């Protein structure tokens, strides 16, 4: 009885290990071409999404592109250096939203303009005193706000 139980348990352990390996293989297969959280303007220009598809667009807010004062609508361009896409958004922008800063918007393209329903500003992981930032900006090393 006990011997039979032991033999069966060994078989179960082998089955368990096979399942773990299968799970790892599934994850590997699912992740084979990396995760894409948002698309860059260049990706969108190269492979335009079908009209009406909702997706996330990420990049830097182009310097000098922010236009306010059309009611609640704000428009700006998101760039990745190579390409840029015009974005409009109705509503309030977060505090950290600024030209030259990273931003991720959710929405869809309509006639070449990205209509964003949501704007997320990303804070970078840098902390430095205000004076240092001013000094860096004077030297033209740092191009933050």
């Amino acid at each position, binding site marked *: *009885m006990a011997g*039979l*139980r*032991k033999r*069966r*348990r060994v078989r*179960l*352990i082998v*089955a*368990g*290990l*096979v*399942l*773990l390996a*299968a*799970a*790892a293989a*599934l*994850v590997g*297969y*699912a*992740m084979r071409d990396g995760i894409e959280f948002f698309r860059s303007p260049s990706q969108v220009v190269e492979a335009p999404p079908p009209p009406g*598809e*909702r*997706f996330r667009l990420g990049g830097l807010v182009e310097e000098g592109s922010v236009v306010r004062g059309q009611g609640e609508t704000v428009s700006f361009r998101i760039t990745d250096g190579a390409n840029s896409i015009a974005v409009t958004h109705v509503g309030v922008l977060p505090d950290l939203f600024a030209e030259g800063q990273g931003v991720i918007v959710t929405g869809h393209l309509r006639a070449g303009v990205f209509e964003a329903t949501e704007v997320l500003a990303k804070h970078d992981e840098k902390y430095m005193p205000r004076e240092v930032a001013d000094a860096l900006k004077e030297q033209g090393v740092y191009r933050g706000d």
Partner: protein
Amino acid sequence: MRPALALLLRDLRLALRAGGGAGLGLAFFLTCVLLMPLGIGPDLAMLSRIAPGLLWVAALLAALLSLDRLFQADLEDGTLEVLAVSALPLEAVAAVKALAHWLTTGLPLVLAAPVLGLTLGLPAQAQPWLVASLAAGTPALSFIGAVGAGLTVGVRRGGLLLSVMVLPLYLPSLIFGARTVALAAQELDPARAFLLLGAITVLSLGIGPFAAAAALRINLR
């Protein structure tokens, strides 16, 4: 395999005849889904947007419902001790009981889901993915739940404790399951979320029986 099959049939019969555990899980699922439009309002556009998450959360709660009795009745009347010294290893006992739990609570949800998806205005292209995601995802709920049931089998009125412990373990399945349906509803490609959902289930099938058996052994000591 014959003793495992005998145990499975016994558990299924008990679930179907005594106390109606099988039907109640489904009834709970239906009630849960019905409550949402009543609470939120009959706006079908909004309901169709939240339908994937709603159906998956309801499935999670329905799976929890009958979990605390998974091993408890057998511990109380001594059946579990007999099973522990039988020719069937305790890991197999745990796996068979988890399977019986899925057949009586998970499978009915899979079959009922398309109707509920329809009433919530889920887009047609998402319907097959809803069924597929529940079919691939709910076994994990039973097998992870078996671990929680094994851990709390000796605790009187362990149902609430069981929910608090097990629900966090369900989160990966919930995320990938609801995501699969939501992506399909937005006409995006749900394949990756679906594969990851399957990976979680396969992992749970691999880990669950062993952890549950370890917990049962500790509780039988």
